[in-house]
């Protein structure tokens, strides 16, 4: 599935991933390929991105952490929408 992470200051990530774990308001949950369409509000926490050959632009690389082959992005709040294997994460 494809993931786009956008913030008011620009795009942070765009690429193919295998799974994403997000901090939902009712608890952390994971989205895999072919997840049902969903819109969810996120709270402060870590977004974990799993996949092969994840690439991040050099400009924004310091916003991410790497933990056990996963890309980790701490966010203050956000919104995530997924449909047709396309995930859009609005992060603040």
């Amino acid at each position: 599935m494809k993931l786009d992470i956008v913030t008011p200051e620009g795009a942070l990530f765009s690429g193919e991933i295998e799974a994403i774990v997000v901090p939902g308001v009712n608890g952390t949950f994971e989205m895999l390929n072919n997840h049902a369409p969903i819109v969810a509000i996120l709270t402060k926490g870590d977004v974990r991105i799993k996949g092969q050959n994840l690439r991040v632009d050099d400009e924004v690389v310091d916003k991410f952490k790497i933990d056990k082959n996963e890309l980790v992005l701490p966010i203050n709040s956000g919104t995530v929408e997924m449909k047709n294997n396309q995930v859009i994460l609005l992060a603040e």
Partner: protein
Amino acid sequence: MANLKDIRTRIQSVGSTMQITNAMKMVSAAKLKKAQDAIEKMRPYAEKLTELLSGLSANLDADLGGDYAALREVKKVLLVPITSNRGLCGALNTNIIKQTMRLIDNEYAGKEVEILTIGKKAYDQLSKKYKVIANKSDLFDNLTYEHVAEIAQEIMNDFVDKKYDKVVLIYNSFKNAATQIVKTEQFLPIKTDIAVGNKVVLDYIYEPSQAEIVLELIPKSLRTQFYKAIRDAWASEHGARMTSMHKATDNAKEMKDELTLQYNKARQAVITGEILEIVSGAEALKN
């Protein structure tokens, strides 16, 4: 007739002014490019947010916006004029200050008006005459979304606490480097016309409920709106400065050409005078 040395000094001073204004123009052009890039970068976020919000709120009939849409009788108004910290950018700041004063004296006459200035120029002018409660000029020293969102949130909280019944932003909207348009934009209460959208039945899972998501998205969209206004003003400032510095350079060049012409004329006159003296001296010797 003007002294040769005087003219030379003037030519030199006009020349160095020209160099300075030209350098400032270059700097502004570079900064303008960056400012425009920043506006460009926030567009995907803003568009997606609006899309989500209008898609969701179209499905809800209930009173939207919650506390941020509360329409109260307008007694207390907060004006937020956004100007630059530095001058030399044409009529940019004057326009904002004029518009602010016009609003206070006409539209909001008799109402309790407080001002929160962003930008040193607005603060300097308005604090002499009106009640300026805060000055957030240091915002431009480190312009990040986080910083701007903080201020937006403070204003939003004040509105919810009923400190103000209406919040208005006054800023320059960037059209191009030569044109900036003064915009007076109602920030709060929000206008619920964002809810205009087609009712679409989307088979989404909502977590939490749709209504709660909308309530969560509205402050986000407000903060984004505020950030956009600041970004717009920032780009306008550099655009206006670039244009006015360009004009200044042109004027200096014109002035320098004129002075050079004057200098050459004066020099020629001196030479002619000297030749005349020599010739008449020689003539006198002949006789």
